[in-house]
Structure formats: C-alpha cells, structure tokens
C-alpha cells in the first residue's frame, strides 16, 4: 500500500516536471493559434521553420548568445571550482589563525548574494571600466560562499593519515593539495555543474553589465518574447528547448558521479 502510494507520488511529480517541457518542445512546431491552446499536445504538422529561422539569426544572433553563455558559465564555474576547492581544503585540513574569519566571509557571501548588490556592482564595474564585455562578469562570478562550504564538507572526509604522510615526507600544504585534489574528482565535477547551472540562469547582472554583442541566453530569450517584435511563439519555444539541452545533457552524463559526491557532502 505504502509502496503503491510512493510510486504514485513519484510518478505524479515526474509527470508535472516533464510534461510541460515536452509540450514546450512540441510547441516549437506549432502555430501561435495552436500554442494558445495549452491542452493541445501534438502539433498538426512538424516543420522545423522555427528552429531554422532562429539558428539563421533572423531575429537575433542566437549562436552568439549561446556561445557567450557557454563561455561565461563555463569560465565562472571553472574558476569558482578552483578557488573554492583551495579555500575549502585549507579550512578543512589546516589549523591556523583567522580560519574562523574565512568561514564567516563565506557565510556572508551566501546570505548577502551578489544579486542584492547588483546596483553597486554595476557602478563598480563602471569604475573598473569593464562594463559591456563578457569578461567583466567572469571574476565576480568566481567567488562563491556555497563553494567554500561544499569543499569544506567534502575534504573533511579525507583521512587525516594522508596529510600526516605528506607532512612526514616534507611536502608543503600547497603540494599536498595538488596531490590530493584529483581524489576529489566527483566533488569537483559536481560543484562545477551546480555552479554552471546557477550562472547559466543568471539574469540580473548580465542585464545590467553586458552590451548587445555579449548578450547571454537569458537576455536573448527575454528579447524573443518581447511583445513589440511580434516574433512567433514557436521561435521562443525552440530557443527555450535549445537552452535546456546542454545543461540537461551534462547532468544526465554526470548524474551518478554527482550522487556519489553529494552523499559525501551531505554526510553529517
């Protein structure tokens, strides 16, 4: 009885989460009139017109904003993983003065995120003269409190004996980190993916800081839906479908790795 109920709940949840996206994909073949009938799932005819006009850049340079997003999110995620892994390792395994302060800094980053500082961040990027280019957001996105906490939790589980051996061998803390960090590969990949998704979805800072040329996907999608351009809904549905594909693919490939890493991180 309980098992049946569990299956029912899970299936209902999965249906609620998947069906709208299926509808979204199929809607990229529909006419506006068909799309405004949400209970209709299948289009009358399958034509790739919406995808074609989107990819040909009829409305905006879709490939470019797709590439921009990939570069920005990939870069941010890579840098954030490196920076946070180092800090997390130091906090988890070494005893030094001010360690508590560093932990506190990371917590401050979590509870006062950069979105809430957006206006002054905009001002600051202007002072630095970085406004407009994609690179301006790369470094601000590389510092994350969640990352430090994540890696602190992850490296906590590394056996202390290994550090002991490294110490006896006379290795510096930095060298020890270099040797031990490949062991945390699942954790590194997991955090990379989590940060990638968060930065892939980031809307406010790119909206403020980026110019037309370095537009990222969320901005492009908003533009496609802008009523004043009268772009067919099917095009924005096609763009939305394409915007989910890379992230979903990455998560699907690394899902098992992710679960094993998360088990270690959530282990209390």
């Amino acid at each position, binding site marked *: 009885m309980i098992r049946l109920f569990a299956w029912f709940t899970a299936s209902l949840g999965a249906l609620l989460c998947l069906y709208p996206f299926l509808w979204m994909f199929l809607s990229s073949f529909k006419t506006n009139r068909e799309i405004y009938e949400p209970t209709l799932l299948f289009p009358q005819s399958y034509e790739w017109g919406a995808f074609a006009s989107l990819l040909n850049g009829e409305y905006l340079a879709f490939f470019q904003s797709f590439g921009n997003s990939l570069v920005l999110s990939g870069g941010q995620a890579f840098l954030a993983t490196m920076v946070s892994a180092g*800090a997390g390792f130091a906090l988890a395994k070494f005893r030094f003065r001010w360690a508590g302060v*560093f932990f506190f800094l990371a917590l401050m980053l979590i509870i006062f995120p950069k979105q809430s500082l957006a206006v002054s961040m905009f001002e600051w990027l202007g002072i630095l003269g970085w406004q407009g280019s994609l690179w301006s957001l790369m470094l601000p996105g590389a510092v994350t409190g969640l990352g430090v906490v994540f890696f602190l939790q992850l490296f906590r589980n590394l056996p202390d004996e290994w550090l002991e051996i490294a110490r006896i061998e006379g290795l510096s*803390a*930095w060298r020890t980190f270099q040797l031990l960090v490949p062991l945390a590969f699942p954790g590194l990949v997991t955090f990379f993916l989590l940060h990638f998704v968060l930065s892939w979805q980031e809307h406010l800072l790119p909206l403020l800081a980026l110019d037309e040329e370095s537009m990222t996907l969320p901005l492009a999608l908003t533009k496609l839906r802008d009523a004043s351009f009268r772009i067919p809904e099917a095009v924005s549905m096609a763009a939305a479908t394409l915007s989910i594909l890379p992230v979903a693919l990455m*998560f699907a490939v690394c899902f098992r790795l992710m679960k094993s890493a998360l088990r270690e991180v959530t282990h*209390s």
Partner: protein
Amino acid sequence: MAKGNSIGDAFSLVLLLGPFLGLWLLFWLVPLLLGVDLSLQNSAWHSEAVHENQYANASKYVGSSNFQRVAEDPKFYKAVRNSTYYVVGTVLLILPLAFALALSLRGMNRLPRGIFVFCLMVPGLAMPGVLSTLFYLFFHGRTGALNHYLIIPLGLKPINWMMDPHFILPSMILQSIWRWTGMVTLFFLCGMESVPRWQLEAARLEGAGTWLKIRSIWIPSIRNLGLFAGVFLAVDGFASFSGAYVLLGGSGGILDSGLLFVTYVYQVAFPGGGGRFDFPAAAAMSLMVAPALALLLFLTLRLRKFLSWE
C-alpha cells in the same frame, strides 16, 4: 571530527586562500562599501542634471535623506512584504514536499529512483525565464493546464492567474516550488543514505511503525540539511529576479501585487522611459533589508555544528 589539525606553512595557505580572499574583497566588499557610499549621496548627482550645473552648489552627500525617502515609500513596503510572502511560502512548501518525495523515492530500486530524481530535477535546470514563459503559456490563462486539470474538475470557477491580484503571488510561489523541489529532493535523498544500516535494522526489530521511523530516523537525518536548504532557498527567493521579470515584463503586475524586492530595486535604479536613474535610493533599499539578513546569519551560524567545524 575537529577542524583541521595539521599546521600549514604560511606560503601555501596564502596560495590556497589568497584567490578566495582577493575575489571576496574585490567583488563583495568593495561593491558593498560602494553601496553604502552611494546610499548617502545626493541622487541628483547621478542624473543628467549634474551637467546642467543646476546642483553645483548642492552638496554631494546628503546624509540619511535617501533612507528617509525609501522609508516613506509605500511601494518599498509592498515589495518587501511580497518578497517575504514569497520566501516564506516557498520555503514552507518546498521542504515538506521534498521530504515526502525523498521518503517515497527512498524505498525504490536504484534504477527507477535515479530516473525519477532526474525527471524531478529538470525544471531546476531550466532558466527561470523559461519557466515563466511556460507558466504564462501552459499553466495560466483561462484554458491553461492549472484551470483545465485542477480548478474546473474541482468544480470551481476558472481563475485568471495573471490578472487577479490575489493569485499572482501564489502562482509565482508555485513556479518556485516547481523549480526547486527536485534539487532539494536529491539532497535529502543523499542525506538519508548516510543513515547507518544498524539504525534501520534496530527500528525493524523493535517493530517501529512508519510514523515513529519518520520521526526518529528520517527527520533527524535531514534536519541540518533542511536548515541549510531553507537558508539557501530564502536567500535565493529574496534575490530572485529573473522569473518575475519575465513573467510580468519588468512591472509589478496588476496593482503591484507581484512586485518583488529585487524587481523594485531594479525599477528604481533603471526606470524605463524618462525616469531618473535613482542609484542612491536603490542602494539605500538594498541596505535596509540588512536586519532580515542578520536573522538568516543567526540561523546559518547554528549550522556550524552540522559543518562540524567549530
């Protein structure tokens, strides 16, 4: 486990922690201080008027007048109230829902469980803007899925989700639930797997019922994780922008009933049309929610035990 017990050499520690500290100073502390500075400035200085020399003899710093201006702005309170409802609604609904889902999924075999969790996570991978678009086209509207599959079969009148001021905020909460529940479920599932087998065995031998097991094993196993997820969701909810921005086109919706805090800050700082760019007021607003954040900080600090790092 205690916190680290090796002594690191200073040079290595600088290498390990330096990048983090540097970026923290540059892209968190400096913007924060700039925000404080901005909030004390005369907003006229930031508009075009400066160049017309009209305010040449007005002082650049105006003390707390921006804060007073914000404190008298009824829209600011509306935005904060809406954001608070939004945050409380999402956190209070997502956590139990994710817990129930994790419990249901826990008993399954590996393969179906993995597939279900992945399906649940799909909305979390999509951009909030895409979710808003789907909400707008698929769920809302007279003939939308919510009305068609839920409200009408219950014998109620179809709800105009986007236009009725009572339902804009709930529909935004629904959207947030849809987005985050899968992710939180995954974390809860992983937390539940760290329960040692002997505990379950003992519970089985004692003949513990389902409720007792939930109360004495499963809730403790995810308590700290739940607190952490709650803090994260609260912060994310308060800082959320994209979903509401796309759903309502940057406005606050009918009667501003969907006006969220960050949306309003954005509206004040970058008004469309001929409005004045009022950066100082926007910065003052961002700083005025600090007491709420102090509360969150208090909650987070209680997590130190969970992080086993005291």
